[in-house]
């Protein structure tokens, strides 16, 4: 009885001891960060600036695309179509061309993105032979944009045609009622905010941890830490705590900004939004840890985690380009990008506002990535540096 009590006390004292040691390590890491004011300012300010810039500026929406009109008929129908193109927010008619030679000219100067060309006797053909043509000549140097331009223009022309059909009371009309779910104003920010969240959290976390550890190696202070009685796992944990805290601050500022400034809704549960973000931050931190076990110098660590990860995250996470349009191989590769799963989950939670049962898969994948990365890095983490 006596013995067991004693044993318990000892055990407790040991735990308290370890906790104390651990906390003093955490404190040390916080000092490291707070002492470097400039880096801290960047770390906390960067997400704010970026989310504002990207929220407003990064969009693929068509807005006021400059087009030119080449109209050989100049009749009531062509007038009305041009008016409707002009009235839409997508297009601005900036030039009226008089000869077909001008078409080449305006494209080469890069002044307009699309030319709308009507043939002769447009209205006449339309009403009598029922065969009137419009040519949409688009500058396809940017294929994405040109497809969208011709798509939207065709849409406007088709709705004009349907208007005519209604006027003429043509039979067999199908009238579609279109419902835009979740984002009725088609705002680009709804799509990009989750992407930017993934990008910023991923890169900042990975960079911070990888540099912090490799730096100690390079400076030689890692030897000192490893020689202390505390276990290596606590050293690493102590490094992760401050960066985790910083990332949570960043996450909060991103969410507040996107809600109040960009007016992106938070339709789903805030609790689960926070939960999945924490998991994602943990994945990013452990990825940084993993990089630090490969890299020997700060330059290498930074170049891998800052420069090396930037493009894959931007391009393969579905942030800008839809993953389902990629070739099979790339779709497969995109599965190993953690940001892909996070962005997917955030879109569902934040904008679609669905329940947690729809993001379980994303969550499970992120969790297993975390476990995998942390196990490998701890195994590779060398207690002896030489």
């Amino acid at each position: 009885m006596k013995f067991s009590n004693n044993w318990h006390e000892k055990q407790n004292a040991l735990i308290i001891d370890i906790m104390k040691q651990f906390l003093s390590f955490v404190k040390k890491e916080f000092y490291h960060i707070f002492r470097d004011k400039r880096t801290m300012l960047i770390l906390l300010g960067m997400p704010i600036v970026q989310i504002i810039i990207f929220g407003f500026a990064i969009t693929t929406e068509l807005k006021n695309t400059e087009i030119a009109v080449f109209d050989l008929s100049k009749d009531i129908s062509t007038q009305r179509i041009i008016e409707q193109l002009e009235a839409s927010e997508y297009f601005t008619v900036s030039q009226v061309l008089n000869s077909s030679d001008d078409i080449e000219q305006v494209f080469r100067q890069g002044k307009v993105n699309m030319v709308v060309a009507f043939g002769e006797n447009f209205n006449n053909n339309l009403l009598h032979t029922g065969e009137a043509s419009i040519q949409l000549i688009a500058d396809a140097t940017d294929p994405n944009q040109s497809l969208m331009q011709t798509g939207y223009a065709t849409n406007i022309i088709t709705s004009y045609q349907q208007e005519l059909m209604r006027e003429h009371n043509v039979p067999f009309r199908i009238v579609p009622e279109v419902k835009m779910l979740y984002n009725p104003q088609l705002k680009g920010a709804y799509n990009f905010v989750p992407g930017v969240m993934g990008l910023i959290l991923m890169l900042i976390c990975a960079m911070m941890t990888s540099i912090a550890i490799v730096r100690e190696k390079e400076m030689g202070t890692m030897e000192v830490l490893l020689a202390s009685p505390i276990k290596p796992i606590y050293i690493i944990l102590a490094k992760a705590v401050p960066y985790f805290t910083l990332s949570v601050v960043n996450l909060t500022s991103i969410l507040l900004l996107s809600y109040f400034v960009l007016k992106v809704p938070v339709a789903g549960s805030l609790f689960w939004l926070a939960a999945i973000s924490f998991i994602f931050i943990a994945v990013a931190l452990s990825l940084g840890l993993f990089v630090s076990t490969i890299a020997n110098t700060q330059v290498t660590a930074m170049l891998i985690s800052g420069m090396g990860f930037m493009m894959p995250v931007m391009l393969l996470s579905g942030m800008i380009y839809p993953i389902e349009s990629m070739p099979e191989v790339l779709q497969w590769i995109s599965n190993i990008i953690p940001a892909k799963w996070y962005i997917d989950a955030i879109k569902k939670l934040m904008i679609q506002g669905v329940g947690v049962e729809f993001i379980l898969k994303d969550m499970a994948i992120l969790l297993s990535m975390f476990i995998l990365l942390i196990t490998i890095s701890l195994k590779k983490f060398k207690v002896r540096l030489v």
Partner: protein
Amino acid sequence: MIKFLIEKEFKQIMRNSFLPRLIIGMPIMMMLIMPWAANQEIKNIKLSIVDNDHSTYSERLVRKATSSGYFHLTDVSLSGDKALHSIESGKADVILEIQTDFEKNLVKTGVANVMISANTVNGVKGSLSSSYMGAILSDFSSDIREEWSPKREGAALPLINVVPQYKFNPNLDYKVFMVPALMVILLTLLTGFLPALNIVSEKEMGTIEQMNVTPVNKFTFILAKLIPYWVIGFTVLTICFGFAAFVYNILPVGSLLTIYLFSGIYILVVSGFGLVISNYSNTMQQAMFVMFFFIMILILMSGLFTPISSMPEWAKIVTIFNPLKYFIQVMRMVYLKGSVFMDLTTQMFALLGFVVFFNTWAIISYKKTN
């Protein structure tokens, strides 16, 4: 004097076990993978169908929609609510709901309703998929019309034939669009980040003090730092040209010489910018984060991924100060449209302005005394 300084820089780069591999490996990886990813074409839209009518016509409509090539039938639901569920779980992107009495209404009253609901979290995808569906519907109704009254009434129908034509890139090949821009990104990353870390790493190592006590003047010092990145930049660019030509079969319509000329100027812009940041930083960490901050903004606001014309006015003004924008324009114009030097004078002056600005700044901000 400068010869030895340059020799020193090269030795420092080559001695690092990682840098030479990065300089060769990164362009190869990026050129092999990235051009395939940059595709915004909306394909394989996942379609969920709710057919409340189950008539000959409704079934024909479903068949027409699924065989159109745009849509990929992933779900058939019994009610609109159930179909909505499949959008929530990501199983479908768009729902086509056919009302009861679709066929009856179409034949008797001449007008029938259907409902299209699209997931518009991605606004472009949502609106394009609903407009594809609209086109299929109007196609379908004109099919039916033709069956009921062949020729006779056909003449009175106002039908507009829209013919799109895509200039400069008739096959709408995204790789043609991305490859030249990727070269710009690679140049920016490699010849931007490396100089940004350069001077500050000498500061952290303490070797900068040795430079400071030599009679080397500031101009020579900065020049010796710039030249190796020039060489690196041209190496990277040449690797890229090779990949573009042999892997993607993309050759510039314009002259390679123009591209090399502009690249030479552009490398000086980013390297100069990197050196400025390096001069102001105390640790590599600072330099890295500052550089990262700017590069990310510069890349995303350059018109590389998303068009500048879609940006709001204030953002368009910001892009005037973005050197990447000008160089991407040059690359795309020379590669795709075959523009010649005379078409590119604006870009030339803009880039030269940046060169003078950043490199003067780099020379001034380098201080030999603490």
